[in-house]
């Protein structure tokens, strides 16, 4: 678990890898730092406090549940910390602190630990908590602070200067472009959720993860590519390219594509499955943005695809060496007929 634990190898030759859950999660946390810095620059210290409370809440819930159920302590693998940061990143900065603690509870206890802890949850905890909070507290969850007008640090900030987010329902549904320029959208000088506004910083973080080999490029590429293609082909006015760029930079697309859709536990492991997964995320994102009533489709799209992962993995299974085409067909026939699908013979 802590990266130093060495398994005894059964057959030769093996290389001891320094990677473990903890080091991977640490890389993800490092990759999220640039976006957090940008959030603090635009929205003030409240962004940092909200993130810290969320991380603390998640770690505490994890610790308390594991302790109460007499299970091993899993604080060290840092997965709860990532859930905390990601949940804070998809919440507006003016959100009262107690609401994010409820989100932490839902993410860690209900979505993750009740299903057995890390590796056994079928939904991304942070996204599920975001959907839960959207349903419970729709107004605080869609009150966007104006960038560079730092809101106060109290539990709730009723007097904060707010503005419309570029990705409001009116924008995506009726094809009106926001006031912000493309440069502002890219850097993050817009209203929106705490960590999702700065596409630039998220791309830097995503590139770091790709270079370190923490995530593979297939899911983000397929996800962003599908959204780009669909918004380019079916713009809601304002020109093909311009509309596409605004759609890519607005909302939590970059955050979702690099950090949430690539979650190991809730994404497919086979190459074909990963491509399907990314394309499905992109398709549902555009459909929800165009026809749905929620401001941003990314989180719900990823949640929908999360629940199809085990099927996608089966669909993307590579051909087994030595299995002839006819036998493979027979295998699928048997699988569809409700057989166990364990063996082709």
């Amino acid at each position, binding site marked *: 678990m802590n990266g130093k634990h060495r398994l005894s190898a059964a057959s030769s030759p093996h290389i001891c890898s320094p990677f473990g859950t903890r080091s991977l999660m640490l890389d993800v946390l490092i990759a999220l730092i640039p976006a957090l810095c940008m959030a603090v620059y635009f929205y003030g210290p409240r962004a940092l406090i909200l993130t810290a409370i969320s991380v603390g809440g998640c770690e505490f819930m994890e610790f308390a549940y594991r302790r109460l159920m007499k299970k091993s302590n899993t604080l060290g693998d840092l997965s709860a910390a990532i859930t905390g940061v990601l949940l804070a990143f998809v919440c507006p900065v003016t959100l009262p602190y107690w609401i994010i603690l409820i989100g932490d509870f839902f993410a860690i206890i209900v979505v993750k630990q009740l299903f057995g802890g890390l590796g056994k949850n079928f939904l991304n905890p942070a996204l599920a908590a975001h959907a*839960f909070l959207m*349903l*419970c507290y729709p107004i605080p969850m869609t009150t966007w602070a104006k960038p560079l007008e730092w809101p106060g640090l109290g539990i709730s900030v009723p007097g904060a200067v707010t503005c419309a987010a570029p990705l409001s329902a009116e924008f995506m549904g009726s094809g009106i472009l926001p006031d912000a320029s493309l440069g502002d959208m890219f850097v993050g000088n817009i209203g929106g959720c705490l960590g999702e506004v700065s596409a630039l910083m998220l791309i830097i973080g995503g590139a770091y993860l790709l270079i370190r080999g923490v995530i593979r490029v297939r899911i983000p590429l397929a996800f962003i590519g599908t959204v780009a293609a669909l918004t380019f082909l079916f713009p809601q006015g304002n020109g093909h390219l311009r509309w596409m760029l605004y759609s890519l930079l607005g909302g939590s697309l970059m955050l979702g594509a690099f950090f949430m859709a690539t979650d190991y536990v809730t994404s497919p492991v086979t190459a074909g499955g990963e491509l399907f997964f990314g394309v499905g995320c992109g398709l549902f994102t555009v459909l929800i943005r165009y026809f749905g009533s929620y401001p941003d489709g990314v989180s719900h799209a990823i949640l929908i695809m999360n629940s199809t992962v085990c099927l996608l993995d089966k669909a993307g299974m590579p051909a087994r060496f030595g299995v002839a085409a006819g036998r493979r067909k027979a295998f699928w026939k048997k699988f569809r007929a409700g057989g166990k699908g364990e063996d082709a013979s």
Partner: protein
Amino acid sequence: MKMRMKIRQQLKEGLFTRNPVLVQQMGLCPVLAVSTSLCNGIGMGLSVLAVLLCSSVIVALLRKIIPDRFRVLCCIAVTAIFTTAAGQLLQSFFPPLSDRLGIYVPLIALNSMILSRTETFAFRSRVDAAAVDGAVQALGYAMALLLLCAVRELLGSGTLGGGLLGAGGAGIRILPEGAGLRVLVLPAGGFLTLAVLIAATQYILRRMAEKNAAAEKEAEL
């Protein structure tokens, strides 16, 4: 003495170890739909209790007359008679409650939990045994329903007893306004709460079974 032991055993099974909602998971449609307030739960629970008790007794009385191949049909017909009566009573004495329960009162006639009790138990039992079983199972159903109602109303709208208690039937406010988890009052929240309750029941049952197994092992030694 033997009868009393048997009733106690039935009570334990109906209320807890084989609870119709939390363990057998039967008749869930009305449970999920009406459990948004405690008041609804009381109305629904009492209706089910009355209908199941009366139907069990009548089916047990008629069990020698009803041909075996028509037993499902006859059970539903008997249940439907009492459901209609319960619906009429609710409508004339508690019109607001009747409005809120809506279609789910007539649907009691087709409740799978009631059908299973009348068709499998009452049809093969003496009248007294059938009456006890009907009452116990309905109590278990009502108890689970009330538990679900209480959790959903308390955490969802922050009140208890809405439509019955408090000023203007608004219920007794326990959580501050705007703090409730609104999703729990929506249909999705019904599934969420029920799932958590079922998980908790399974956990407790498993712990009990483990404890029993350990005690038996010790007794053997």
